[in-house]
C-alpha cells in the first residue's frame, strides 16, 4: 500500500497561504471596490461606546496595504502590515525553494510570528485607547 507523504509545518503553512490568497482576491474586488468603493463606515463599537475595539481599522489598513500605502496601513492597524510582510517573505522564499528544488532555502514558520501578532494587537488596542481617552487623539 502506498504511504501518503508526510506534510511538514512549512508545507502546511504554504498551502494555507495559497488558499488565503485565492480567497482574498475576490473579497478585495467584491467588497472593497465593487460594494464600498474604498469608503468605510466607522466601527459600531467606536460609534456607540467611544472606544476602539481590538480590530478597529483593520479593513482600512488592509485596503491601504493592498494599494501600497504602507505607513497609512500601519497607522490604521499595525497587524495588517506585520502579517503582510511575514506572508510575502514566507511565500516568496518558499516558492523560490520549491522552484530551485531546495538550493535556495526558504524561511521557516516560527512560533514567534504568532506571539508577535498577540503583542502587536494588545499594544495597538492599549495605545490607541489611551491616546483616545486621555488626549482625544483619533486614528480612524
Amino acid at each position, binding site marked *: 500500500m502506498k504511504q501518503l507523504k508526510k506534510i511538514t509545518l512549512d508545507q502546511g503553512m504554504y498551502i494555507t497561504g495559497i488558499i488565503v490568497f485565492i480567497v482574498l482576491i475576490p473579497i478585495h474586488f467584491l467588497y472593497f471596490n465593487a460594494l464600498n468603493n474604498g469608503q468605510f463606515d466607522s466601527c459600531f463599537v467606536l460609534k456607540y461606546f467611544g472606544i476602539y475595539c481590538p480590530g478597529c481599522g483593520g479593513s482600512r489598513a488592509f485596503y491601504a496595504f493592498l494599494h501600497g500605502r504602507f505607513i497609512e496601513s500601519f497607522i490604521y492597524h499595525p497587524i495588517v502590515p506585520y502579517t503582510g510582510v511575514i506572508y510575502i517573505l514566507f511565500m516568496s522564499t518558499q516558492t523560490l525553494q520549491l522552484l530551485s528544488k531546495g538550493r535556495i532555502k526558504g524561511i521557516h514558520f516560527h512560533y514567534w510570528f504568532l506571539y508577535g501578532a*498577540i503583542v502587536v494587537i494588545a499594544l495597538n488596542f492599549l495605545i490607541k485607547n489611551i491616546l483616545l481617552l486621555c488626549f482625544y487623539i483619533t486614528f480612524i
Partner: protein
Amino acid sequence: MDQNQNEEQHTYTEKWMDNQKSTTDVISHLFGDSSISRDTSSVVMHNPYDPVIPVNDNSDRQKNIGFAITGMVCGIFSMLACILMLFDIIVSILGLIFSIIAIAKKYAGKGMAIAGIVCSCVGLVLSVGFFILCIAFSI
C-alpha cells in the same frame, strides 16, 4: 567475503560476551555479592552489529502540535473579530476547545495553548460584553 565477515562478527560477539563475564566478576568481587553468578544464559545478548533504532516517546505528541497552533490562531482571530459577536463567540469557543485539548492530552506547544486560552477568553469576554451592551442599548 561473506564467510570472513561472519567469522569476524562471531569473534567480536565472543569477545563482547567474555567482557560481560569479566565485568560481572569485578562487581561480585567489589561488593561481595554471591548472587551475581557467572551464568549469563538468562541475560539477553544484543548483537553489536544490530542497527540501533532511536526511540522517541515524544513523536506522537509532536505530531499533534496543530492543536496548540489552531487554538492560538482562533484566539488571535477572536480578539480581532470581536465586532462579529455571535460568529466570534463560536471561534472563541473553538479556540478554547483546541487549546484545552492540547494541554489536557499533554501535546507539544503548551505555551501556545496557554496563549490560545488567554486570547480566546479575551475575545469571548469582549464579544459577549458588546453583545450584552447592544441588547441593553437596543442598537
